[in-house]
C-alpha cells in the first residue's frame, strides 16, 4: 500500500512536470538508456563478460545473471527460473518464438536449443516488464539468435573451436561460418558436445550424468532493399543419452526442429523505428529411457511430442509527444501429448497418456508505451491481453481426464497484464524507477491435464486439475541504476544497479496431497494434485556492480536474495538463498586472466512440502586464462582454466536430489578464426 501511495505521488508530480516543460530532448536520451538498461544493457554486459569462455553452455552464462537460477535435475537441460518463478510463471522465448518442451519431467527447457555460438543476446525481463511477450507473473527470458551478417563481401568467415574439460571428460567442438554476397548473407552453426559421467567434488563419479548432443542451424538473410530484409532460419538439435541423475529416467533421444520465416524493417520511416513479422513452427520429440538404470522394477517407455505453430508482428513507433510505443501481436497453437508404456512380464502392456492430447491456442497483444514527462520524469505503461484456450483433442484423452472427475470441455481464459513505471533521472547517468503491476498467468499443460506425473524431488505423482484458476500477482519493483566515475585509461568507471521487488500472488498454484488417491509410480509417496492456494508472498532484491577498474582491469560483482512464503508462513519451493559472485579480469593485451568467486549462504527456508531440505552454503573459486595470437591470416585463441579450484563437494538449493555438482574441472580450448 505504501508503495502504491508512493507511486501515486510520483505520478502526480510527473503530470506537473509534463505541463511545465515540453523540452524532452534531454529525456529522449535518458529514455534510450532506460530502455536498454531495462531490457538488456547491464545484463548484456554480464552475458558478454561470461561468454568469453567458449565452452560455457547457455546455462552456465545465464546462471551468472543475478535474476536467474536453474532447477537442476542433471548436468544439462536445467530449467531456468527468475527470482524463484519457474515453469508456467515465466516465458522463455527463442527469437520471439514459443517453444514448449515435450518432456513431462521438464528435461527440455527451450534454453537447451541455443548454443552460445548461436546467441546474439539475452534479455531477462523481470516481472511485468516481460509481459509484452506473453502473460507472465515472473518475467520473460528472450534468447535472440545470432544474425547472418554481411561483413565482408564474398568472403567466408569461419570460427572453429575445440575444447576439453576434465571433470566430465567432456569434448566440445563448434564451427561457425558467415558468408555474404550481394543481397544474401548466411550463417551456419554447428556444435557437438559429448561428456561422460562427471566427477563431483571429492572424487565421486556421478552416474547417469553424461550426454551427447548435436546442435546445428542455418540462417539466410535476403535484403529486399536498404531497410527491408527477409530471413529464413532453421535449427536442429539432437540429444542422445542425456543423463538426469536426480530423476529415475534419462533421455534416450530428444530432437527439436525449429524453423521460421521473417521479414524485418530497420528504418521504415513514417514514424516507425522498426518492425518485424515472423511465422514459425517447431516440433520437439522426446524419448525418456530407463534401460541404463539398474534395479528398474519395470521397463517403461515415455515418449512425448510438442508441436507449435505461430506468428507474430512487432514494431516500435515514435509518437508526436516524444514517446515511444512498442507493440507486439502474436498467436500460436501448441499440441502436446505424452504417454507411458510399461512392460510387465506375462501381462498386457500398461499404457496411459501422461499428457492427454491437448491443444493450447493463444492469441494476444502487448504494448509498451514510454513517455517522457519532462527532462527528469518518464512514465512507462506495459499492457498485455491474452486469449488462451485449451482443449483435449482425442476421445482417449477426454476419457482419461474424466477419470479424475473433471469436465473435459474446452476451457478458455482471458488474461490481463498491466504495469506502470515511473522513472526519474537523478543526475546524468543515474536513474531511479518504480513499477507497480498486476499480472496473470495461465496454468501449464501439466498443471491442467498432467496424469500421474512423477516428481522425483518430493516423490509424489502429480495430477492436473482441469479447472484450475489463473494465477495472478500484484507486484512492485523499485530500483536505482547509474554510473560513477569517468573511465578512460587510468580512471574508474563503475556501473551499479540496485533492485528490490515484492509480489503478492493469488491463486498460487502448488501441489497438494490427495490422501484418497493411490500413487501410480512404484514406490511413490502418494498423489498430489495442482491446487490454487489463496495467497503467497515473494520479495527480494539484487545488486550488480560492474566496471572498468583502470586500463587493464574489469570486474563484476552481483548479489541476490529472494524470500517467498505462503499465507501460513511456509517457504515456497525453488527459492535460491542469498548468493553473490565476484569476478575480476586482468587483460593487459592478448593475454587475459580472470578469477571468480561465488558464494551462497545456506538455505534454511526450504519447502518441506515440495520435498526440499536444508542446503548448506558454499564458496567456489574459478580461474580462467586466455591468450589470443594472430597466426598467418587467422587468429588463434587459447583458453584454459579451472572451475571449482578447491574441488568442493557442493550443491545448490535448486538442485534436485542433492546431487553434488561438478568437482574441479580443468579445461582447455583452442579456437581458430579464419
Amino acid at each position: 500500500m505504501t508503495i502504491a501511495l508512493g507511486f501515486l505521488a510520483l505520478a502526480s508530480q510527473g503530470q506537473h512536470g509534463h505541463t511545465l516543460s515540453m523540452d524532452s530532448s534531454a529525456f529522449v536520451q535518458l529514455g534510450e538508456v532506460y530502455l536498454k538498461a531495462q531490457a538488456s544493457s547491464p545484463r548484456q554486459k554480464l552475458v558478454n563478460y561470461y561468454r568469453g569462455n567458449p565452452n560455457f553452455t547457455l546455462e552456465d552464462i545465464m546462471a551468472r545473471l543475478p535474476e536467474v537460477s536453474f532447477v537442476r535435475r542433471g548436468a544439462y537441460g536445467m530449467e531456468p527460473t527468475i527470482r524463484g518463478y519457474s515453469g508456467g510463471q515465466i516465458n522463455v522465448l527463442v527469437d520471439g518464438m514459443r517453444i514448449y518442451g515435450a518432456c513431462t519431467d521438464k528435461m527440455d527447457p527451450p534454453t537447451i536449443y541455443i548454443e552460445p555460438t548461436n546467441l546474439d543476446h539475452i534479455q531477462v525481463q523481470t516481472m511485468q516488464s516481460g509481459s509484452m511477450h506473453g502473460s507472465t507473473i515472473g518475467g520473460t527470458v528472450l534468447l535472440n539468435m545470432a544474425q547472418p551478417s554481411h561483413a565482408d563481401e564474398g568472403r567466408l568467415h569461419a570460427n572453429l573451436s575445440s575444447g576439453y574439460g576434465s571433470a566430465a571428460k567432456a569434448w566440445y567442438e563448434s564451427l561457425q561460418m558467415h558468408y555474404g554476397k550481394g543481397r544474401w548473407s548466411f550463417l551456419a552453426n554447428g556444435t557437438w558436445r559429448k561428456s561422460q559421467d562427471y566427477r563431483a567434488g571429492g572424487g565421486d563419479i556421478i552416474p547417469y550424468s553424461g550426454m551427447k548432443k548435436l546442435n546445428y542451424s542455418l540462417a539466410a538473410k535476403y535484403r529486399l532493399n536498404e531497410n527491408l530484409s527477409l530471413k529464413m532460419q532453421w535449427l536442429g538439435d539432437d540429444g542422445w543419452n542425456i543423463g538426469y541423475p536426480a530423476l529415475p529416467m534419462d533421455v534416450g533421444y530428444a530432437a527439436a526442429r525449429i524453423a521460421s520465416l521473417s521479414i524485418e524493417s530497420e528504418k521504415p520511416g513514417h514514424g516507425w523505428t522498426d518492425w518485424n513479422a515472423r511465422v514459425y513452427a517447431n516440433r520437439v520429440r522426446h524419448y525418456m529411457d530407463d534401460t541404463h538404470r539398474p534395479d528398474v522394477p519395470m521397463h517403461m517407455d515415455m515418449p512425448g511430442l510438442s508441436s507449435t505453430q505461430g506468428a507474430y508482428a512487432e514494431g516500435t513507433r515514435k509518437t508526436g509527444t516524444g514517446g515511444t510505443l512498442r507493440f507486439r501481436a502474436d498467436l500460436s497453437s501448441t499440441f502436446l501429448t505424452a504417454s507411458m508404456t510399461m512392460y510387465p512380464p506375462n501381462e498386457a502392456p500398461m499404457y496411459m497418456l501422461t499428457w492427454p492430447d491437448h491443444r493450447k491456442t493463444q492469441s494476444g497483444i502487448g504494448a509498451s508505451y514510454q513517455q517522457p514527462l519532462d527532462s527528469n520524469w518518464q512514465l512507462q505503461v506495459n499492457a498485455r491481453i491474452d486469449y488462451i484456450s485449451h482443449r483435449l483433442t482425442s476421445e482417449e484423452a477426454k476419457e482419461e481426464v474424466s477419470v479424475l472427475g473433471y469436465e473435459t470441455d474446452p476451457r478458455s481464459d482471458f488474461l490481463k497484464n498491466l504495469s506502470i513505471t515511473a522513472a526519474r533521472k537523478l543526475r546524468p547517468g543515474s536513474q531511479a524507477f518504480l513499477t507497480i503491476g498486476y499480472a496473470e498467468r495461465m496454468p501449464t499443460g501439466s498443471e491442467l491435464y498432467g496424469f500421474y506425473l512423477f516428481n522425483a524431488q518430493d516423490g509424489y505423482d502429480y495430477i492436473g486439475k482441469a479447472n484450475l484458476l489463473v494465477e495472478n500477482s500484484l507486484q512492485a519493483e523499485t530500483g536505482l541504476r547509474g554510473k560513477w566515475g569517468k573511465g578512460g585509461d587510468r580512471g574508474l568507471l563503475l556501473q551499479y544497479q540496485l533492485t528490490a521487488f515484492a509480489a503478492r500472488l493469488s491463486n498460487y498454484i502448488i501441489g497438494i496431497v490427495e490422501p484418497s488417491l493411490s500413487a501410480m509410480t512404484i514406490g511413490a509417496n502418494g498423489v498430489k494434485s495442482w491446487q490454487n492456494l489463496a495467497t503467497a508472498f515473494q520479495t527480494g532484491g539484487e545488486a550488480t556492480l560492474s566496471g572498468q577498474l583502470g586500463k587493464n582491469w574489469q570486474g563484476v560483482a552481483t548479489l541476490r536474495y529472494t524470500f517467498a512464503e505462503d499465507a501460513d508462513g511456509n517457504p515456497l519451493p525453488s527459492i535460491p538463498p542469498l548468493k553473490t559472485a565476484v569476478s575480476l579480469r586482468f587483460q593487459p593485451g592478448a593475454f587475459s586472466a580472470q578469477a571468480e568467486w561465488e558464494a551462497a549462504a545456506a538455505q534454511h527456508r526450504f519447502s518441506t512440502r515440495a520435498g526440499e531440505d536444508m542446503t548448506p552454503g558454499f564458496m567456489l573459486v574459478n580461474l580462467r586464462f586466455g591468450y589470443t595470437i594472430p597466426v598467418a591470416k587467422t587468429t588463434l585463441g587459447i583458453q584454459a582454466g579451472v572451475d571449482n579450484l578447491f574441488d568442493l563437494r557442493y550443491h545448490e538449493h535448486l538442485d534436485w536430489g542433492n546431487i553434488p555438482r561438478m568437482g574441479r574441472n580443468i579445461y582447455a580450448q583452442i579456437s581458430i578464426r579464419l
Partner: protein
Amino acid sequence: MQTISRFSVSLFFLAAIFAAACSKEDSPAPDPMANMVKLTEGFAAGAATKVQVYTEQATIQTGYTRFYLTLTDSATGKSIRDAHVKLMPMMDMGTMKHSAPCEDPVTEKPADGVYQGAAVFIMPSMGGSWTMSFMIHNHLSNKEGTLTVPITVAEPAKSTLKSFTAKHDGQKYFVALIEPSKPKIGINDFEIGVYKRASMMSFPADSTMRFSIEPEMPTMGHGSPNNVNPVHQRNGHFKGNVNFTMTGFWRVHFDAFQQSAVADTTQYFDIEF
C-alpha cells in the same frame, strides 16, 4: 482465371447432384444380427417355429451370455413378432442335473423381431454337458414347443463369474460380470448380475445385496479414483462405474453386504486389456 471458376462451379454442381442422389437412396434397415455369431438353428417341435440362435461370441464361456433369437413360422415362412419365449440352461453331470441363472426376453413383441435373453453358465462343459432349451409359445398360432440344443461352455482365461457362500445367511450366490465387456482407459460402466441358488433348478436374481468395488493394479499396487459402487437396477443387475487409468492387468475387488451384514469380502474380477 475464368477456367478455374468454371471448373469450380461445375465441381460444385457435381457435388450437389451426388449429395442429392445419395440422400434419395433408401438406407436399408440395419441388420440387428450383423455383428452376431449364429450359434445354431432348429425347429421348436410343436410350435411350428424355426428358431435361429445368435450369440455375441463364437465361443460361449462360463459367465453371463446373451442369446438373441429370431423366430419364423415354419408354415408361412413369416417372421414371428408375437411370442412368449423362455430359456432354460441345464447341466447334466451324469449323477445329477442342475440349471443356472437365466433371463427371459423382456418383451413378447420385439419391434425388430429379436428376442433377447441370457444365461449365466456357472461351470464349463468339462464336468458334464450343457444344453440350452428355448421354449416358444407362438401367440399367433397359439402353439407351444421347445428347441433344445447342446452348448459347449469353455472356461475363460480371466473368470467373469464368481460364487461365494454368504457369511450372513449361508446361501450360495453367483455374481456375473456383464460390463465392461470392452474395457478402456477412462470411466467404464461396471455391471454385474447377482443370483442366489434357491435350489438346483432355481437361481433367482437377487436385489438385496449391496456392493462396494475397488479396482487395483496388482503389478503396480495402485488403484484408481472416483469409482462408483454398483447399485441395483432390475433383474439382479447392479450398475456402477469402474475407472481405469491405464491399460494392463486390473483386479476389481468387490465386497458384498446385506444391510450391515458382511456377505463376502474376498471376491474380485480380473480384467486385462
